[in-house]
C-alpha cells in the first residue's frame, strides 16, 4: 500500500497555476491626473449599492454631476455601508485625508455627530437628518412637492379610483410623501383613495414587487412607491397597470407602465455647497431645498400621460415654484375627517418633519400608532 500526504503537492500545484494566471492579468494603474493645485477631497458614504436604480443611484448621479462641474476636486465613494458602520467609515475617510464628507442616509446621524466632534476641521453634510454642529450641516429636499404633482397625474388617470402606494418604513419622510401624493390625487379626484402597504425595506426588489402585486390584486390600477428598487414598477408592467416611480427615471424598467416619477436631482446642490466650501463661505445649516432650487422634480412624462394632465400639473408646478402656495396648506383633514390644518394656514416645517398621521383619502395605518 502506498500512502502519501498530498497536501503539500496540491498547494504547490495551485500556487504555480496561480502565478501563471497572474501573468496574464493586466495591471491597470491609472495615471494620477494633473498635479499642481491642491485638490479638495470629497467623499460620499452610501447606504446601498450605486446600481440600485433608486436612492443611492440618484446620489451617485449627483456626484458625477459635481465632478463634471467643479474643477480641482477628487471624489470617492464607499457603498453598502450599514448604518452602524457609518462612524467607522467616516473616521476612516477623514484619516485618508478627505475634507468634506457626505453621509447619505438618515441612520448615519449619531455617528457623524460623533466623528465631527473629533475632527472640527472637516465638514460633514448629512442627508435627511436633524442634528447639526458647527461643522455638520444637513440637507434634504422638499420631495413632497414633486409627490403632490405626481399625485395629480395618478388622480387623473386612475379608472378604478384605487391607487396603490408601496411604502418603505413608517417614518415621517415616508408618511409625508404619502400625504402629499394623496392631496394631489384628491385635488383632482375626490373619490379616489390611496392604499398603503408597508414593506419595511428600502431595497428588497422581490418583496417590494410582491407588495405591489398584492395592491394590484386588490383592484389598484396605479402603483407608486417609496423604495429604491424598480420592483413595484415591474409588477405594474406585468399587470398592464400604470406606475409612478421614485428617486430616478425608472422608465427603462417598465416602459409601458411608467408614467413619471418624483426624482431627486442632487447635482446642483452638491455643486453649490462645494463651491461655498471652496470659497470659505460655507456655514452649518439645515437645508431643506424646495423644488424651485431644482433639487426635486418630476421625471419626463411618458407618452401615456395626456396633454390635459400635463397642463394641469404644469399649472400647479408654477404655483408651487412661485412660493405663493405650498402642498400642506389648509384645510387638511385627517383620516377621521377632523380638520388638522385650518383653512389658509400653512404647516410649519417642524410639523411636516414629524408627520405621524395620514390625511383623508389614505387607506392604511401607521403600524406603530394605536
Amino acid at each position: 500500500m502506498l500512502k502519501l500526504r498530498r497536501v503539500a503537492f496540491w498547494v504547490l500545484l495551485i500556487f504555480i497555476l496561480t502565478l501563471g494566471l497572474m501573468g496574464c492579468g493586466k495591471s491597470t494603474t491609472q495615471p494620477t491626473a494633473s498635479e499642481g493645485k491642491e485638490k479638495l477631497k470629497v467623499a460620499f458614504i452610501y447606504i446601498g449599492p450605486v446600481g440600485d436604480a433608486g436612492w443611492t443611484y440618484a446620489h451617485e448621479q449627483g456626484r458625477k454631476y459635481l465632478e463634471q462641474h467643479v474643477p480641482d476636486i477628487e471624489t470617492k465613494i464607499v457603498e453598502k455601508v450599514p448604518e452602524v458602520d457609518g462612524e467607522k467609515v467616516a473616521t476612516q475617510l477623514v484619516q485618508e485625508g478627505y475634507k468634506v464628507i457626505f453621509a447619505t442616509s438618515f441612520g448615519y446621524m449619531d455617528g457623524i455627530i460623533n466623528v465631527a466632534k473629533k475632527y472640527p476641521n472637516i465638514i460633514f453634510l448629512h442627508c435627511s437628518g436633524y442634528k447639526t454642529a458647527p461643522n455638520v450641516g444637513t440637507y434634504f429636499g422638499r420631495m413632497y412637492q414633486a409627490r403632490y404633482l405626481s399625485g395629480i397625474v395618478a388622480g387623473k388617470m386612475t379608472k378604478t379610483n384605487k391607487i396603490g402606494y408601496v411604502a418603505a418604513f413608517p417614518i415621517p419622510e415616508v408618511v409625508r410623501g404619502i400625504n402629499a401624493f394623496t392631496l394631489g390625487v384628491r385635488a383632482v379626484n375626490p373619490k379616489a383613495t390611496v392604499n398603503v402597504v408597508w414593506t419595511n425595506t428600502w431595497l428588497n426588489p422581490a418583496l417590494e414587487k410582491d407588495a405591489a402585486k398584492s395592491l394590484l390584486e386588490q383592484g389598484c390600477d396605479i402603483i407608486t412607491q417609496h423604495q429604491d428598487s424598480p420592483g413595484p414598477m415591474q409588477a405594474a408592467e406585468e399587470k398592464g397597470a400604470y406606475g409612478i416611480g421614485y428617486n430616478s427615471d425608472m422608465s427603462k424598467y417598465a416602459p409601458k407602465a411608467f408614467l413619471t416619477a418624483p426624482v431627486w436631482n442632487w447635482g446642483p446642490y452638491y455643486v453649490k455647497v462645494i463651491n461655498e466650501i471652496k470659497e470659505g463661505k460655507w456655514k452649518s445649516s439645515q437645508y431643506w431645498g424646495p423644488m424651485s432650487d431644482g433639487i426635486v422634480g418630476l421625471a419626463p412624462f411618458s407618452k401615456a400621460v395626456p396633454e390635459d394632465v400635463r397642463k394641469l400639473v404644469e399649472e400647479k408646478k408654477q404655483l408651487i415654484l412661485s412660493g405663493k402656495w405650498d402642498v400642506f396648506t389648509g384645510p387638511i383633514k385627517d383620516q377621521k375627517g377632523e380638520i388638522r390644518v385650518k383653512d389658509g394656514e400653512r404647516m410649519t416645517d417642524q410639523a411636516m418633519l414629524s408627520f405621524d398621521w395620514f390625511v383623508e383619502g389614505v387607506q392604511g395605518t401607521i403600524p406603530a400608532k394605536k
Partner: protein
Amino acid sequence: MSNSRFVNRFRLRVEKQIHTSPWISLLIPFTSIVLALLVGAVFLSLTGNNPWKVYGVMFKGAFGSVFGLSECVVNAIPLLMTGLAVALAFRMLLWNIGAEGQFYMGAFAASWVALSFPHAPMYLVMPGMLLAGFAGGAVWGLLPAVLRAFLGVNETLTTLMLNYVAILWVDSLVYGPWRDPQGYNFPLTAQFSSAATLPTLGNTRIHAGVFLALAAAVVIYIILKHTVWGYEIRVIGESQKAAKYAGINVVKNILLVMLLSGGLSGLAGYCEVAEITHRLQESISAGYGYTAIIVAWLGKLNPWAIMVVSFLFGGFLVGGYTMQSAGLPAATVSILQGAILFFVLAGEVLTRYRICVVERRNDR
C-alpha cells in the same frame, strides 16, 4: 501503463486525522490564507486591479494605524462575546445559532433599564443595565433550551426562528412606544443619560466592553478547563451516552449552558447600546450573531483562539471598507472576503481530515 489504468490503481481516501501535529495545524490555516489571497489576486487582476496595491490598502487600513487597530477591537468586542457564547453551546453539541436574537434581547433589556431610569446615578444604572442585558439574552437562550430539554425540539430551528422574533420585537418598539418624542418620529429611542454610557478609551471608540469581553473569555476558559461543570459540558459534548452513564444530568446542563450562552450574547447587545449607539434602534447588530458562528468554528471552540480570530475578523471587516475607498466596488470586496473565508474554512477541514492516496488491492 495507460492513464486510466493508473487512475484505477489508486484512489483517494479521506480519513479523520488521528492526532493533528502542531505544525500542521499552524501550516494549514497559513497556507489557506495565502491561497485565498492568491486566488483573490487572480480575480483582482482579471477585473483590472492591482492586487498587491489592494492588499496593501486592506492590510494598512485594518492594522496600519491606531484608528484601524482600534476599530478592529471595536468590531472584535461583540464578535468575541457572541463567539464565546456560541462556542460554549457548540461544545455541548447544542447548535445555538440564535446569538443574533439573544444579542437583540440583551440590547432591548438593557435599554429598558436605561430608558426607565433616566435620572438614576451611574452606580445603579450601569449594573442594572448589565444584569438586564444578561438576563434578556439568557431568557432568549433558555426558551429553546426548555423546548429541547423537555420536548426534544431541535434547537437549531428554534434559535434561528427566535432571531426574527427578537429583531422584529425591537423594531416594533423603536417604531412605536419607545420612539423618542424629540426625534421627529424617527425610529430611534431617546439617547441614554450619560450615567448609562461609559467613556471610551482616548480618542478611539474602544469602550469598557472590551474588559467585559476579555473577562468573559477568561471565565469561559476556566469553566471549561478547570471546573466540574466544564468537565460535564465536555463529556456531554463528546458523548451523551457516556454522560448518562456517568450520571450527568444532561437536561440540567442544557438549560444552564443555554442560559449562559444566551446571557453572553445579551451582554454583547448591552455593550452595543450602552457604548456604541447610546440608544436602541433598528439593525443594531451588523450580523454579529451569525459571524460569531464562523468565529467560534475557526477558533475551534477554544476561548483563546476565538479571541485571536475575532480580532482578525474585526480587521477583515474594517479592511473591507478601506478596499472600497481604494476604488473597489462593494461587490468585489464581498467576493474577495467570501473567497478568503472559503479557503480558511476548507483548510480547517484539512486539519481535521487527511487525504491519502491508496493503492487498490486485489486488482489485476
